[in-house]
């Protein structure tokens, strides 16, 4: 299953890939004035409609990768292409679900969900109708007038999902979106995400530190190395769809894949742990 870090098999449809990172390096300037390399020479491509999970230990540049694809950040070296075109600024075809609560606390649920279409110039009546529809789809009907602080963490995540999906993104970036939720809510939300995704047909880059979550959701899992984020390995997940997240964990194939990838990931986690220990 290990396709090795050169990922030659995706080269055949390079022109058709939705996201294409070619030898991308990103350096930041730390407050003390030193350059800090978040990711180095990352090459990754995601096909249209594909669900790709990116796993790696903390601080391996997972969020940076998403920032580059979204256009919020610019690469220091290399090229980032979305839908065959280099990324210049923020592409309207992109949706981004953040790790922390990024819903607007001063807007109620309805106004949060309707934000995107209104920003993009949709007539108000039309946008509101669409927002009601999406609030229904994520199961928040009846909570339109509630403010985020009146909702549970899981419900706020639903608001965030509706807020993102209402724009019908063709590329969906998710940065550890469910990491703050309890395990039960999380499984529910993962299922919710899979069903929303299957109706949308977008390609997804899903960043997580949870290997189980990655395998349960994705078509492909990309493991990043500790420290200088480079691609360590890419694994195809050949589990059938539609999947039920709470059941798929017990399938023999799932367990087999998990063992295979964990062997690779474990070394990186230990490395990252040792490095952090030295820093302290």
């Amino acid at each position, binding site marked *: 299953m290990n396709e090795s870090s050169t990922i030659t098999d995706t080269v055949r449809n390079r022109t058709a890939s939705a996201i294409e990172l070619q030898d991308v390096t990103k350096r930041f300037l730390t407050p003390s004035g030193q350059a800090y390399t978040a990711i180095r020479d990352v090459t990754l491509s995601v096909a249209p409609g594909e669900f790709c999970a990116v796993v790696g230990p903390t601080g391996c540049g997972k969020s940076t990768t998403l920032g580059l694809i*979204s256009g*919020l950040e610019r690469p220091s070296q290399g090229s980032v292409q979305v839908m065959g075109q280099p990324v210049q600024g*923020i592409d*309207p075809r*992109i*949706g*981004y679900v*953040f790790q*922390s*609560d*990024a*819903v*607007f*606390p*001063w*807007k*109620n649920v309805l*106004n949060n969900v309707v*934000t*995107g279409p209104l*920003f*993009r110039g949709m007539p108000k009546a039309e946008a509101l109708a669409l927002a009601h529809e999406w609030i229904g789809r994520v199961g928040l009907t009846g909570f339109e*007038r*509630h*403010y985020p*602080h*009146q909702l549970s963490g899981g419900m706020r995540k639903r608001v965030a999902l509706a*807020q*993102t999906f209402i*724009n019908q993104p063709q590329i969906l970036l998710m940065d550890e979106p469910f990491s703050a939720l309890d395990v039960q809510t999380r499984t529910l939300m993962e299922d919710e995400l899979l069903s929303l995704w299957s109706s949308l047909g977008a390609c997804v880059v899903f960043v997580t530190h949870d290997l189980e979550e990655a395998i349960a959701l994705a078509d492909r899992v990309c493991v990043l190395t500790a420290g200088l984020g480079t691609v360590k390995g890419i694994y195809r997940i050949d589990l059938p769809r539609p999947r039920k997240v709470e059941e798929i964990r017990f399938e023999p194939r799932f367990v087999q894949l998990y063992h295979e990838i964990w062997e690779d990931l474990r070394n990186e986690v230990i490395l990252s742990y040792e490095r952090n220990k030295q820093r302290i």
Partner: protein
Amino acid sequence: MSAISNASNAPMSSPESPAGPSPAVARRRRRIVVNSLRVGLLVVIIGGWELATRVGIIDKFFWGQPSGIWAQLVTWATQGTAQGPLWQQIATTLEETVLGFLIGVVLGVFFGVLLGRVQFLADVLGPYIKAANSLPRVTLAPLLAIGLGLGMQSKVALAVILVFFIVFFNAFQGVREVDRHLLANARILGANQRQLTTQVIIPSALTWITASLQTSFSFALVGAVVGEFVGAIQGIGLMIQTAGANFNANGVFAAMVILAVVALVTEALVTALERRLLRWRPSSVSEVTI
């Protein structure tokens, strides 16, 4: 911002109902004790003051006398002041305060947001604003009286200047403190620069701005009254000034009582405004009331 005026207020915490009515009773008992002590304290201070002046420990010519202050208030209310009816003096000071407050807030928010958003402007103007802020600005009162005359403008201008800096620094800081995830989210959702300012940055900075409104209002009042000290035709500040010049200690105190009442009433209004602006925030578990 939302167009909904009456969202249900946080049904998160239901009133606790432990066995027995003891907490409610205890709370009521505590309130009775607090209130009676408050009244008692007032009686002791006012009564002691009155008594001390009558016995002669305190000279009522210099330090006034509660009964004299009350008599002065009654005289002003029934017969008017030296400058005209009492309500007119209050109205004048109030008008100056409110105008100064509103103009100062608008200017402060505008420039605070502008400089918060445009780093270049902040770099250029930063030192001058800091320098201006470090000056005791009430010293501008005589200058304003010369330039703008003895009418209302000079007082409004002083109030504006005092209010501006407070609101400005809060708005500026508020803009700087906007959660970068919220900004990133809004940009991804498709916000342009103008939408980013009006829909994310200003609502987010409102927490900081509203925190400055109470202080700003008191400073607007200070501006109006100090402006009237320096030179005016009407107003509570002028009443204080006149009373002081005539060695009328009771008059000074009486005007101060009026000012206190005015300040308390308007403060309540500002608090109501603050609540309205920050409706979306979780109400704190136990509000401390003083």
